[in-house]
């Protein structure tokens, strides 16, 4: 089993979600993160001081999945989350030792 962490643009979330749903991935966990990368934040002004907010608001999707679906999921996120401009984000894959479903106590692939 694997965990896929994808950092995406907030404005692409809905596209990505729909694309994932199309390949049968409906379950995931979402969190708000701030990205510091090549793409810089917007120009801001406050009381005469001009500054950059040097981060971008992004969403992180955590998806637990079986090994065989990893490539498909990555392809889907790349396909739906890409704008082609700097700042589109990253997808990272981790190995998972075990997954347990709290409701039933089931362990392993059936718990996903």
């Amino acid at each position, binding site marked *: 089993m694997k965990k896929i962490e994808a950092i995406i643009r907030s404005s692409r979330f809905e596209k990505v979600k729909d694309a994932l749903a199309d390949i049968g991935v409906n379950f995931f966990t979402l969190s708000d993160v701030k990205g510091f990368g090549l793409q810089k934040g917007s120009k*801001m002004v*406050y009381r005469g001081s001009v500054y950059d907010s040097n981060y971008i608001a992004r969403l992180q999707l955590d998806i637990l999945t079986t090994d065989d679906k990893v490539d498909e999921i990555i392809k889907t996120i790349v396909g739906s989350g890409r704008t082609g401009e700097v700042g589109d984000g990253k997808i990272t894959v981790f190995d998972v030792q075990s997954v347990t479903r709290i409701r039933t106590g089931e362990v392993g692939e059936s718990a996903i």
Partner: protein
Amino acid sequence: MANVTAQQAMEAANEAAFLTNNLWILVATVLVFIMHLGFATLESGFVQRKNTVNILFKNAMIIAIGLLTYCLIGFNLMYPGADFAGKFFGFGGFGLNPSEADLTSAYGDYTYWSDFIFQGMFAATAATIVSGAVAERIKLESFLIFATILVAISYPITGMWKWGGGWLDAMGFYDFAGSTLVHAMGGAAALAAAIVLGPRLGKYTPSGIKPIPGHNMPLAAVGVFLLWFGWFGFNGGSVLSADAANVSLVFVTTALAAAAGAVGAFIASYLLFKSHDLSMVLNGILGGLVGITAGADQMGPMSAVLIGLVAGVIIPFSVVFFDRIKVDDPVGATSVHLVCGIWGTLAVGIFGKMAGMGQFINQLIGTLAVCVFTFAFSFGLMYLLKVTIGIRVSEEEEIKGLDIAEHGASAYQNVENAAFAANIQ
């Protein structure tokens, strides 16, 4: 004080009454002023977090621009003087130039200055109504130009038709405090602007209407209470004196209509949506207030309750209707001001002292004339702006939010300072 004549005593008594009448107009002015804060908070609460600074900025500028242009030309366009009685248009000249006598009881129950400032506070309202309907997607500059022209020219022209002694006044049209002249007028401008501008991105999708909930309900509620508060000055001041019987009646009808508006919207939205929707009840209160405004001095308590109740019931239907025809109005300005404004104007022909078929027809003509003129004026102006400087922010800016895009700011900064770095000072 030995040799006082009865004549002198009478003059002193009249002067004392003049003092009180004038004072009430000024107090009412202050109350109408705070309605601008009511609009600002209501609209802020109903937009998304990312567009909050923008809507506050617009509301602060509108009241400023409204007062200044009304001083420059609006007042004299709206009240051009007796020479233009029964006309469609008139102009009394630029600026404010009262004579000595205009500052005494010779002018009426209040001074020239009181007259100007009370009327001036009304003027900016029209633009404020629009600002809610076009929120979250209009360019700041284009909006400010639109608002300036609307307040400086369109509002005073139609206002003159009735309050300035123009043709509607001559015809027998009645609009006590502005259900049509202020509210339906502002609502018609809002409708035109919202149509030309188009809906917010992602609001109307092939799979249905996507709600875009407001970001701060307490702020919206503060706005509605402040508007109700100010409305006592808006309607009560429109008596144009402190006349005890009239002002107190107007207070009663205004309060009861607002209360009934809340109840109407409560019931109707529960029946329609099986839910207790705060935003509908808030709009219902405003609907009741707009509804009673045309005839606040003509109604008894029961008529006021009925007028408010109907206005409240109208609200959820109207909101759904505009959504169905894909007119995107984030704050419900068209439902509250246009629809309930027309309803309130017509109600003068149905309920109260003036009720009657003749009056009803006069009311219908009056409200249609003002709405059609304003709609056409606003549509044309908006369209002109669209094909020249453009009226809509880019898609990217709309997604980012106008606060960042137009102001480089954010309404609720809550980052570690650390996450910021100053570049240039």
